[in-house]
């Protein structure tokens, strides 16, 4: 599909910073989030969850619960027909409702719908589950040992030749790279090799999962929920319940954060099953405790990195080995981690091997650039150590080896134009790189990469009678994207931003849209919005042509008006969009623009982060003094929300680097399922995060947009790790670098 870049790129509204459509509602409390939806006659649902990390479910007796007054329905594994489920969705089914085994503490085993919450809670206590407790494993390295308890008797490592005959917890092995790493290491003057470990972090979205499902007696259903992808929720919930997709209509609520964690289903298919059985609307809302135990945190990891370089800094060989646990099911993001490991570097000899491992923990879900931060922690730490050994500035060492336009990436494709070099140069020239450090302070640098994604997208744009625009997109807005769509529509149509109202339409009102993930929305829905606007413009030019009695191609669109294309076309005064809209009823009926597309050409995005920290030498506590994010946005449609993504990624990365971690007891149970002991940073833990937006246009988008949502969380683990290492005089290799770990490192 040819995409004409806007000539000269002299934007009128793109790059301005208007208020977002949802802004006032959110600060006044009028916005409706998942748990704010209620229906007449609605029941309260609650989920019974496994107290065991690993057990066989011998029987489930719900008879006493059903006898309790006020209980309207109970569902268990028996209410889902596994035989009719697409094998590709089997793990999703097993995760939302356990079948023969519970695979982690918090795994759902039954759900009830009752007239109120106390009755529902009481009913859960009356359900008798007979468990046969099995040995468990929660640590990724332990799970890989031959002696580890095996979660799935039918798991034989994929990607290994010959195929293993013994079942194990290693779901698959992946490998990427090119050249000959051994030969590369032979040419090296200096080699650094180290092992790293990162603990699992949770996305920490403030809004817990929530859904209301209502199925009528005719089998048609509606659902309201907080999700990053209501089309995905519709398709999966309908399928797992054996319902036609057309019989379920899903509306996405406002969303209180997702960060990847709401790109899958947890409660929704269960709510639908309960509603069907009770014949009443059913609402399910997770507690924070359930969010931690039963939604999807990211992987914990083991990462080994070996890099060799010549005295002048040229990297001659780079190797890495990654093992990521994805919770109790295959599908950790180790493949993406392996692809990203060395994406920032232009390398002759590179090899990355990854293992996808299952353990008795909740099924991981995407978290901002899934898989990349863990690998980057290892690589960026080793690069930093190499710079120390070579006596080079860490930015210079990266500049020497940085990926450029034309670099063959370590995972295969050859990169097009990108902004890595520009981010490094901007970092080097940034005033924050020149501040003098005091005692116990350290500075860290790291770079990061994320692919970004396009995907299936449908947009509909209605030209209203008064010349205002109703723009419907199908991608839930998790970072201000409605404002960006409005800006792109206004730019293309040549009208004011406040004439466009962007909404997220329900699943019955638009064609299929992929989930809001992969930093895809401003790129894909933006591209579709521009295309839909061009479609509407073409139609409006047609209407003008009709009114003027000239051929359609003799009309052109400029500054929000139809104009005769030249002197030969006739001498008609320009007609505004509003003029054309007003007469639409007489010129052929409603005017609308559409675009249905599988968007390709999402541009990669690189970033460089700088951070200064101070570590208290007597307590090991780290305070972040200054933080700078420099990233390529291609084109910042709404710069404030681009900066917000940069700052948000850095803030989450700092939290993960310093304090956030899933802590398991020997019993396989999570010990810190709450925000008191799972420590995300509070405002006063962070300095104002400085940002620099680099704009190297992405040729795949009409305005040059690249996704910006995810790259920002890739460098922080390495950047903070390097800064803390310099401040303590000891190389940090475990994330989080919590005070006990840092103090131990300082004390030696």
């Amino acid at each position: 599909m040819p995409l004409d870049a806007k000539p000269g790129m002299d934007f009128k509204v793109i790059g301005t910073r208007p208020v977002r459509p949802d802004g006032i509602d959110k600060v006044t409390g009028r916005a409706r989030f998942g748990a704010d939806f209620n229906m007449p006659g609605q029941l309260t649902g609650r989920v019974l969850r496994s107290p065991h990390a690993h057990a066989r479910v011998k029987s489930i007796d719900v008879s006493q619960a059903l006898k309790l007054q006020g209980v309207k329905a109970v569902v268990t594994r028996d209410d889902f027909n596994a035989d009719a489920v697409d094998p590709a969705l089997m793990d999703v089914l097993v995760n939302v409702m356990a079948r023969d085994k519970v695979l982690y503490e918090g795994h759902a085993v039954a759900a009830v719908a009752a007239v109120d919450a106390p009755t529902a809670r009481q009913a859960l206590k009356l359900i008798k589950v007979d468990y046969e407790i099995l040995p468990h494993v929660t640590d990724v390295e332990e799970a890989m040992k031959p002696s580890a308890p095996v979660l799935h008797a039918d798991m034989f490592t994929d990607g290994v030749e010959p195929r293993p005959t013994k079942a194990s917890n290693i779901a698959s092995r992946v490998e990427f790279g090119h050249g000959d790493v051994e030969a590369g290491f032979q040419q090296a003057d200096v080699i650094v090799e180290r092992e790293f470990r990162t603990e699992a972090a949770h996305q920490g979205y403030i809004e817990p999962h929530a859904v209301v499902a209502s199925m009528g007696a005719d089998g048609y259903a509606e659902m309201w929920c907080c999700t990053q992808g209501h089309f995905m929720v519709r398709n999966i919930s309908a399928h797992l319940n054996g319902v036609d997709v057309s019989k379920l209509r899903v509306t996405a609520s406002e969303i209180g954060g997702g960060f990847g964690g709401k790109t899958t289903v947890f409660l929704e298919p269960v709510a639908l099953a309960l509603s069907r059985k009770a014949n009443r609307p059913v609402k399910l809302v997770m507690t924070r405790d359930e969010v931690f135990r039963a939604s999807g945190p990211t992987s914990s990891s083991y990462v080994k990195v070996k890099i060799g370089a010549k005295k002048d800094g040229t990297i001659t060989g780079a190797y890495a080995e990654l093992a990521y646990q994805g919770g109790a099911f295959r599908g950790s993001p180790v493949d993406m981690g392996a692809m990203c490991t060395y994406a920032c570097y232009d390398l002759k000899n590179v090899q990355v091997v990854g293992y996808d491992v299952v353990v008795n923990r909740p099924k991981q879900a995407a978290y901002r650039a899934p898989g990349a931060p863990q690998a980057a922690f290892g690589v960026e730490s080793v690069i930093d150590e190499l710079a120390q050994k070579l006596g080079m500035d860490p930015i210079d060492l990266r500049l020497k080896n940085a990926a450029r336009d034309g670099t063959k990436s370590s995972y295969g494709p050859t990169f097009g134009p990108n902004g890595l070099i520009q981010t490094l140069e901007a970092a080097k020239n940034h005033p924050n790189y020149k501040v003098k450090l005091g005692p116990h302070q350290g500075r860290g640098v790291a770079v990061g990469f994320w692919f970004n994604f396009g995907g299936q997208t449908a947009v509909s744009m209605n030209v209203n009678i008064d010349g205002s625009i109703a723009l419907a997109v199908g991608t839930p807005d998790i970072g201000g994207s409605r404002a960006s769509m409005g800006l792109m529509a206004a730019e293309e149509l040549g009208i004011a931003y406040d004439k466009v109202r962007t909404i997220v339409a329900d699943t019955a009102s638009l064609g299929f849209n992929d989930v809001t993930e992969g930093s895809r929305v401003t790129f894909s829905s933006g591209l579709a919005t521009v295309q839909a606007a061009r479609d509407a413009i073409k139609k409006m030019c047609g209407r003008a042509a009709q009114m003027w009695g000239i051929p359609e191609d003799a009309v052109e669109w400029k500054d929000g008006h139809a104009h005769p294309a030249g002197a030969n076309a006739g001498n008609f005064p320009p007609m505004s969009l509003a003029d054309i809209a007003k007469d639409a009823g007489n010129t052929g009926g409603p005017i609308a623009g559409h675009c249905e597309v599988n968007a390709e050409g999402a541009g990669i995005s690189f970033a460089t982060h700088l951070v200064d920290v101070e570590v208290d030498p007597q307590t090991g506590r780290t305070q972040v003094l200054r933080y700078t994010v420099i990233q390529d946005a291609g084109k910042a449609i709404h710069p404030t929300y681009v900066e917000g993504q940069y700052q948000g990624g850095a803030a989450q990365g700092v939290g993960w680097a310093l304090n956030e971690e899933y802590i398991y007891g020997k019993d396989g149970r999570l010990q810190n399922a709450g925000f008191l002991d799972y420590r995300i940073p509070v405002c006063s833990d962070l300095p104002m995060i400085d940002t620099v937006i680099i704009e190297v246009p992405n040729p795949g988008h009409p305005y040059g947009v690249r996704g910006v949502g995810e790259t920002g969380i890739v460098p922080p683990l390495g950047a903070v790790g390097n800064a803390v290492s310099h401040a303590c005089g000891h190389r940090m290799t475990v994330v989080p670098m919590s005070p006990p770990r840092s103090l131990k490192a300082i004390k030696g």
Partner: protein
Amino acid sequence: MRYETPATIEAAVGLIAAETGIARVLSGGTDLLVQLKAGMIEPDLVVDLKRIAATREITAEAGGFRIGSAVSAASLREHKALRAAWPGIIEGLKLIGSTQVQGRATLTGNLCNASPAADSVPCLVAAGASARIVGPSGKRDIPVQDVPAGPGRTNLAKGELVESIFIPAAAAHTGSCYLRFTPRTEMDIAVVSAGVSVTLDASGTCTAACIVLGAVAARVTIAEEAAKAIIGTKVDEAALAKMQAAASAAATPIDDKRGTKEFRIEVAGVLARRAVEKALERARGK
């Protein structure tokens, strides 16, 4: 669950003494309501003390302060004389939650919740505070450190409640300080803490000291050897070093999700020293 708001202490005692199920007293509710909502406790009766006028008063007594059980942390922070006499107690209160939480939270609730990490308790102990307990068989005064029995448990008998807390006058040249260690800057719970009180004579020799550690045992720990290390000295470097080591030695923490044993022992000494240094500064300034 019944919720009662009696108008007198006697009525409150009568209600909780008569309850055959589980009775809970509510002051600010910032612990109790959280526990209720989380389903950690399911009381049959909740007795709210805030309607009893006397529980909301701070009165002068023998040069010190008698603090009604429902007085909020925010009111205490605004009390000039208390702030001047015992800055360490105020420092503990200032750390509790947020401005909103402090509008409700009380000293008595912090004490009776019996968390080893309670922020106002170490300095209350260092100040020599006592709790006045009323019950069906009358009133008694006990040192505040004897109210908690262990995490989440108190030594109060059936039908008893804390009516007030008495904080004695501070002797001349007394300084106090409270410090806690948390990974975050705020909205966190003490991994280790130290509340200290130090009294000097006119020549600068330490005549009395009390060094109290929080979150390193099931209850607050009074580090007597640490206090002895500075009493009778000019609190010089040697005495401070001895005090720090003694404070670490007094700590008997466990490994848990909030920190390792090793870390808490080390940091207990560090905080005790930093708190004593600050308290000394205050004592010398008086």
